[in-house]
C-alpha cells in the first residue's frame, strides 16, 4: 500500500528515453535509506549500510550530487530507498528469479531492490557478487543513466567479476555530468608540493603532487589521469598534520638552490611545514614557536591575505590582498621595490575587460604546465609565460590570457556531503 501510495501521489509522464538518460532529480542533496523491511540475510546491517554509503560516495565524488543517509524522516521524503528481497518482494511488480541471472533492479521512483537469493559479498571478499558494484550500477539507474554497453563502464548490464580497480572512468563521469553538470566551486588554495624521496635503490628523486584545498578538505589531483585521487576529498588533518582544521588562505613552497620551505598562511598567522616528517614545525631555527605572525615573518605583507604563490623566476613570493599585489623578496626578506602595486599593473589583461580584478581565491604555479594560474570562483586566468611571449611578441609581461572554466581544465573535483567525508 505504501508503494501504491507513492505511485499514485506522483504524476508521471512517459519519459524521453534519450540515449544518455535523463535528469531524475532536480535537487542536489538526496536522502537515502536501507529500508527496515529490506535487510539482507547475508551481510550484517552495518556492512550493508557501509557498502551503500561507499556506493553513494563514489557517485558524489564525480558529480555535483550529495547523498545523506536518513533513517528518521517519513519514507515519502526519502529520495532513494534500497532493500533486499527474494521472489515477490517489497510490493514490487517484478519478481526476482532466484540465484543467477537478475541480481537487482531499479525503478524511476528511486526504489532499488536486490535479489537476496544472490550471493552478495562485501568489497574485496573474493567470490560472489560484489554488492558495491551492483549498488553503484543501480544507483546510476535511479540517477537517470541507462545501460551503457562499453567495456569499462559501470553501467554495463552484465556483472563483471574480475576487475582490479572498480572506479568510474572518464566516460561514466561525463555521462553523469551530462545530466547533472560539472563540479564547480571556489578553492582556498592550489599548489604543487615538491619533496625529496628515496627510491628503493637509495637514489634521491624529486617528486611533486598537486593539491586543491577547499575549507577543511583537500584533493590530490592526478594530472596525468585528469582526475582527483580515488577516494578524495579527505579532511585536512588526515594529510596535513598541524594545519588549521577548517582551511588555509594560501600555501607557498619556496624552492630554490638555497631554500626549501613550505609555508601555510591562515588569517594573521603562518606555519612552516616539515615535508620530511609530514607535519608542521613547532618552532623555527631561531626558536620562534609556530604559528608566527605574518607581519613578523614577512615584513610589509598585510594579513589576512587572499592567497600567494612563489615565483622561482625571481625568487619572490607574490601575496594578493583585494586589488593589491605585494612581491616579497625572500633573499632580502622585505617587500620588493615599488610594491604593493595594483593587480592590473602586475598582471595586465591580454584581452581588455577579461580580468579577475582582485580578490582572487588562489594563485598557482603548476609544474605540470610550467605556468601560473590565478583562480577566482569557477574561473581561472593563465599568466603569459616566456614561451608565449617568444611566439607572440605583443603579449604583455605577466599578462593574463582570457579566462577559462576551472572544471574544464582540472576535472571532477567534487564535494561530498559532510556526513560522507568519513565512511
Amino acid at each position: 500500500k505504501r508503494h501504491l501510495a507513492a505511485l499514485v501521489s506522483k504524476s508521471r509522464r512517459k519519459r524521453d528515453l534519450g540515449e544518455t538518460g535523463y535528469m531524475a532529480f532536480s535537487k542536489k542533496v538526496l536522502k537515502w535509506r536501507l529500508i527496515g523491511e529490506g535487510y539482507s540475510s547475508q551481510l550484517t546491517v552495518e556492512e550493508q549500510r557501509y557498502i551503500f554509503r561507499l556506493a553513494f560516495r563514489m557517485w558524489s565524488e564525480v558529480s555535483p550530487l550529495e547523498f545523506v543517509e536518513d533513517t528518521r524522516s517519513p519514507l515519502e521524503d526519502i529520495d532513494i530507498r534500497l532493500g533486499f528481497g527474494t521472489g515477490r518482494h517489497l510490493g514490487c511488480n517484478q519478481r526476482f528469479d532466484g540465484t543467477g541471472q537478475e541480481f537487482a533492479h531499479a525503478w524511476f521512483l528511486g526504489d532499488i531492490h536486490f535479489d537476496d537469493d544472490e550471493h552478495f559479498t562485501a568489497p574485496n571478499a573474493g567470490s560472489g557478487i560484489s554488492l558495491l558494484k551492483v549498488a553503484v550500477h543501480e544507483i546510476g539507474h535511479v540517477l537517470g543513466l541507462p545501460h551503457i554497453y562499453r567495456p569499462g563502464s559501470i553501467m554495463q548490464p552484465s556483472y563483471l567479476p574480475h576487475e582490479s580497480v572498480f572506479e568510474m572512468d572518464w566516460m561514466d563521469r561525463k555521462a553523469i555530468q551530462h545530466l547533472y553538470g560539472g563540479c564547480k566551486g571556489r578553492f582556498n588554495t592550489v599548489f604543487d608540493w615538491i619533496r625529496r624521496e628515496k627510491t628503493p635503490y637509495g637514489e634521491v628523486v624529486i617528486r611533486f603532487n598537486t593539491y586543491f584545498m577547499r575549507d577543511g578538505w583537500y584533493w590530490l589531483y592526478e594530472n596525468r589521469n585528469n582526475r582527483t585521487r580515488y577516494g578524495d576529498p579527505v579532511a585536512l588533518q588526515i594529510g596535513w598534520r598541524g594545519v588549521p582544521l577548517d582551511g588555509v588562505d594560501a600555501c607557498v613552497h619556496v624552492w630554490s638552490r638555497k631554500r626549501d620551505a613550505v609555508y601555510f598562511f591562515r588569517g594573521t598567522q603562518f606555519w612552516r611545514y616539515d615535508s620530511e616528517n609530514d607535519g608542521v614545525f613547532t618552532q623555527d631555527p631561531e626558536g620562534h614557536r609556530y604559528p608566527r605572525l605574518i607581519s613578523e615573518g614577512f615584513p610589509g605583507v598585510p594579513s589576512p591575505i587572499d592567497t600567494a604563490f612563489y615565483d622561482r623566476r625571481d625568487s619572490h613570493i607574490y601575496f594578493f590582498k583585494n586589488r593589491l599585489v605585494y612581491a616579497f623578496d625572500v633573499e632580502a626578506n622585505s617587500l620588493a621595490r615599488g610594491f604593493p602595486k595594483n593587480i592590473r599593473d602586475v598582471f595586465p589583461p591580454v584581452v581588455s575587460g577579461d580580468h579577475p580584478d582582485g580578490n582572487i581565491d588562489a594563485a598557482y604555479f603548476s609544474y605540470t604546465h610550467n605556468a601560473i594560474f590565478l583562480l577566482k570562483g569557477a574561473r581561472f586566468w593563465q599568466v603569459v609565460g616566456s614561451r608565449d611571449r617568444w611566439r607572440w611578441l605583443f603579449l604583455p609581461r605577466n599578462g593574463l590570457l582570457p579566462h577559462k572554466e576551472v572544471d574544464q581544465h582540472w576535472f571532477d573535483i567534487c564535494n561530498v556531503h559532510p556526513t560522507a567525508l568519513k565512511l
Partner: protein
Amino acid sequence: EKLFHNRDHSDVQTLNSHQAEVITDKYKAELFLSRYGFMKPVNWEEIQFEDSHTSFSGDFLNDLQATIQEGASVPHSRDAPQDDYMIPTESEAFASALKEFQKVSGLPVTGVFDEATKVAMNKPRCGVPDTEIDLNTAVAAENSSASDIENSPGDTYETDSNNTSEAVRRR
C-alpha cells in the same frame, strides 16, 4: 559431502532452493529478449499514466491488487509461466533481436540462439531493461534496438604510469 565439517557447519553449502530458471531454449530466450527490451512483446498490456492527474485502466489496479495479495502468500511456482499470456515466436523479430543482443554483448552476430548467446543470457545481470521501461508500462520502446550508449572510441586520456596512488589501497 565432505566427510568432516567445521564444528559450526559454516562450510556447509545449503542448497538454495531458489535458482533462476536457466535459459535453455528459444522460448525462454524470447522471454529474455522481450523482457530486456530487445524485442517488442506482442500483447503485454499498455498502461499509461496521464499527465495532469493519475488515472489507471482497470486492469492495472486488479493486477497490482493481485500482486499485493500474492506477495503475501502464494509460493514461488516454477513450472508454468508466471502470467497466462504467450509470446508468439516471430522468427524474423526473434533473429533481429538476437543479433542486437549479440552485437551489444560483443558476441559473434549470428542471429542464431547458439551456445555463446545462451551463456551470455544466463550471466548475472541487472534487471533493468536495456531500453528503459516506464514503471508499469510493459511496452518496450518502439525502436527495439537497445537504446544504450554504444561508445565510439571517444577521446583517450593518459594512463597513469606512475605508482598506484595510495587512495586505491586506502579505498
